[in-house]
């Protein structure tokens, strides 16, 4: 049988084709990793249940108000945002057993034994419709930061590493223990106009 000599395909344009594809993917790609403050919204109250007055003692509530001029009112006093983190930490821990700060309860926690926890504290955040989003996020961030710092301090003291460095599978009990001691309780009031 006569065999025709197969000619080699010219691969010179291969680079051009690959470049074309490459440029397409370069243009259509977005490298941004999405990150942000993760929060859980409270579920919508059932229609039938009336607004019940939840009985929380005054000393257990930390009221944070932000008005439409982005001013901060914490527990009835004007505050600069850079002081908010420390104030929040003091409220959560209540280091000097201040009768105006939240009451402590003794709870038995794994790894830690009996610990005094301000178990019933609540941080209540209210903002006006005119508050800027930037301010709102800054306040949220500071409140979350207060908890993170406390958790980190506790973990550092106990295990010598930060809370985020605990292994989510291996150290599940440890994470749970720390979260029991410093449980995040940031509640946002039902929206209304704070005015200002």
């Amino acid at each position, binding site marked *: 049988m006569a065999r025709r000599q197969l000619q080699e395909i010219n691969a010179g344009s291969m680079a051009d084709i690959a470049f074309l594809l490459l440029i397409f993917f370069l243009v259509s790609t977005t490298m941004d990793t999405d990150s942000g403050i993760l929060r859980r919204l409270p579920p919508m109250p059932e229609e039938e249940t009336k607004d019940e007055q939840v009985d929380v003692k005054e000393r257990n509530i930390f009221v944070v108000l932000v008005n439409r001029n982005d001013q901060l009112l914490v527990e009835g006093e004007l505050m600069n945002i850079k002081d908010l983190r420390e104030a929040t930490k003091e409220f959560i821990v209540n280091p000097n057993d201040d009768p105006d700060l939240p009451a402590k309860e003794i709870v038995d926690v794994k790894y830690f034994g009996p610990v005094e926890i301000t178990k019933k504290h609540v941080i209540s955040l209210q903002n006006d*419709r005119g508050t800027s989003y930037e301010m709102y996020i800054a306040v949220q961030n500071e409140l979350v930061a207060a908890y993170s710092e406390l958790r980190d301090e506790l973990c550092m003291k106990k295990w010598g590493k930060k809370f985020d460095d605990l292994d989510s599978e291996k150290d599940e009990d440890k994470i749970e223990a720390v979260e029991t001691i410093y449980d995040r309780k940031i509640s946002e009031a039902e929206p209304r106009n704070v005015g200002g």
Partner: protein
Amino acid sequence: MSKFKKGEKKTVGSISTASLPDIVFMLLFFFMVTTVMREVELKVDYRPTTADQITKLEEKSLVSYIYIGKPLSTKIFGTVPRIQLNDSFAEPEQIRDFIAAKREQLNENDRPKMTVSLKIDKKVEMGIVTDVKQELRKASALKINYSTNEGDPVEALRSRR
């Protein structure tokens, strides 16, 4: 001048470009693997705020995006902040349908893990954000993420003034 001209003839052979396609293909595969297609065409002005207590969103397929900001083409749409769902402007009432549709696309096991990423311009006032949050609560999409850049928010606020 002529001094230099008269050297030995040393021609440097041209560099072989035979491996060029391989290199380009390598790059190509890298970008093909890492690429995420743009979800939507942005119609609103979105400049994120900064925060430092941030978590990375892991599974992109479980995330739906809501954009809020001033329309880009202010001549047509004005300067009042608007909500963008998918590729068009929307009213807060439409969020419920949007969430229902997104939830429908997910695997049944993944539905509770659905996250809504709020990409909100920093100049937006909280009024519209509150409306959106109320709608999300009604749609029981409770896991939300305020999308931000990494940085110190207190510093950022100070430099604004």
